[in-house]
């Protein structure tokens, strides 16, 4: 079993900013599911759609009303592409809802290489702000998507927090990056993610299968950690 903790399916005003011409085809739910299944992925966390294989984390903008998200397990924000003040009222209402309903707050840093899709706020700044937030709000679970190995290494305090998880969708530098990541982030808080359909979903599966990590950690990353986090 494989659970993809960050993919994109259905309309989402932020993820549709990406410049990959293939996207339009696969934001369609049926095509997305077909693509995921061909990669061996059984369940995917996405923002714009929901069915037996898709777990919906609706995307919130700073203007969104978190009270309108309905019954979901998490919400997604893009603080590198939309300006979020982590000390502001909008974030306070997201955190309050997260505490009230046990929502996972997914922080998505990258859809594409910043040289292709420019970030309004650099990932590093967001991670520093998140570190303070995660320290204060220990009862909120944060899942970081799109960080790379060097950012994990530079923000080791953040990624050692028990309420912070990290996915591997953009862990692509340097050689043996997954093995290196596990030296700085506990394998129990590393999540499998593809960033599909912007990226090929099969590439993420392939690299986990062929990385020099233990079978125990492989299983944790591919599904156990996500299963536990999602309850």
């Amino acid at each position: 079993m494989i659970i993809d903790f960050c993919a994109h399916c259905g309309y989402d005003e932020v993820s549709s900013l990406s410049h990959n011409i293939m996207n339009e085809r696969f934001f369609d739910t049926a095509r997305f599911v077909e693509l995921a299944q061909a990669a061996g992925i059984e369940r995917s966390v996405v923002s714009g759609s929901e069915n037996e294989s898709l777990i919906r984390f609706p995307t919130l903008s700073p203007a969104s009303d978190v009270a309108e998200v309905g019954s979901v397990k998490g919400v997604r924000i893009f603080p590198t592409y939309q300006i979020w003040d982590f000390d502001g009222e909008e974030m306070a209402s997201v955190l309050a809802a997260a505490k009230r309903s046990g929502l996972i707050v997914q922080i998505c840093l990258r859809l594409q290489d910043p040289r292709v899709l420019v970030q309004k706020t650099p990932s590093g700044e967001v991670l520093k702000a998140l570190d303070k937030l995660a320290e204060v709000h220990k009862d909120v679970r944060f899942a970081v998507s799109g960080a790379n190995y060097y950012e994990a290494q530079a923000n080791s305090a953040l990624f050692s927090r028990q309420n912070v998880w990290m996915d591997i969708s953009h862990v692509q530098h340097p050689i043996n990056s997954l093995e290196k990541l596990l030296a700085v982030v506990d394998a129990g808080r590393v999540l499998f993610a593809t960033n599909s359909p912007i990226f090929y979903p099969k590439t993420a599966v392939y690299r986990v299968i062929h990385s020099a990590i233990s079978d125990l950690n492989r299983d944790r990353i591919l599904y156990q950690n996500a299963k536990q986090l999602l309850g």
Partner: protein
Amino acid sequence: MKKPASIFDIHVHLLGNAQLDAEFMAFAQNWDMPFATSCLGSQGSMLAYPTFEQCVAANDAVLEQMAQYPDFVYGFCYVSQQHESSAVEEVRRCLGKGMRGVKLWVAVKVDDPRTFPIAEAALEYNAPVLIHSYLRREEILPEESKPDHIVALARRYPDLPIIMAHMALRWQEGADAVAECPNIYVDTSGCDPELGSVEYVIDRLGVDRVLYGSDGPGRDVLCQIARVMAADISESDREKVLHLNAKRLLGLGGAK
């Protein structure tokens, strides 16, 4: 999701970083993956505007690695067009010692006339020229070559094989720009594994002009291989991209 039977990495860098260089060599040996490599600075840093002496030292490091791993490591000579006639002599020195190609990075755009004598020296040896190209949204390197600069060079030297590295980052625009130049190849290295990228460049350029590359060890080689393994292409096309095209281009009939 098996390992490919044969693979050749056309775009590798000897970094002068002992740990990363050793990790790359271990990976390449484990995957039985011969490779083409250049060194952009032999002290662990990549030098965008190297001195001539730094280029010579970097190339000497590659020659040393070639001698240590014959029939497995194939060198590309790194020069800067800023060094004009000295750069040409360095190309001749390195190709004469068995290097297989020339690497140009970001010191001078490749449509600059200072590139022409280097291209002519490469042509003397029928050696391909590997040219870095990134189509960035925000310019940070004023002399970084874009696909249009590479097209200008390719049209001036239609018999010179040119490899446009990284599919120019924005692969759709990169492939569209060079599609009409049959002597321009692209490598898949050094960019994210975006869905449809391999299929698109094959469709626009033809499979014979697409080469697997990693840009390792700075990039995770496994992720770069995975992109080609994930692409929705025929197995015969995958073999061409993974190793046959590179071996043909470098004249490596006897390579593993």
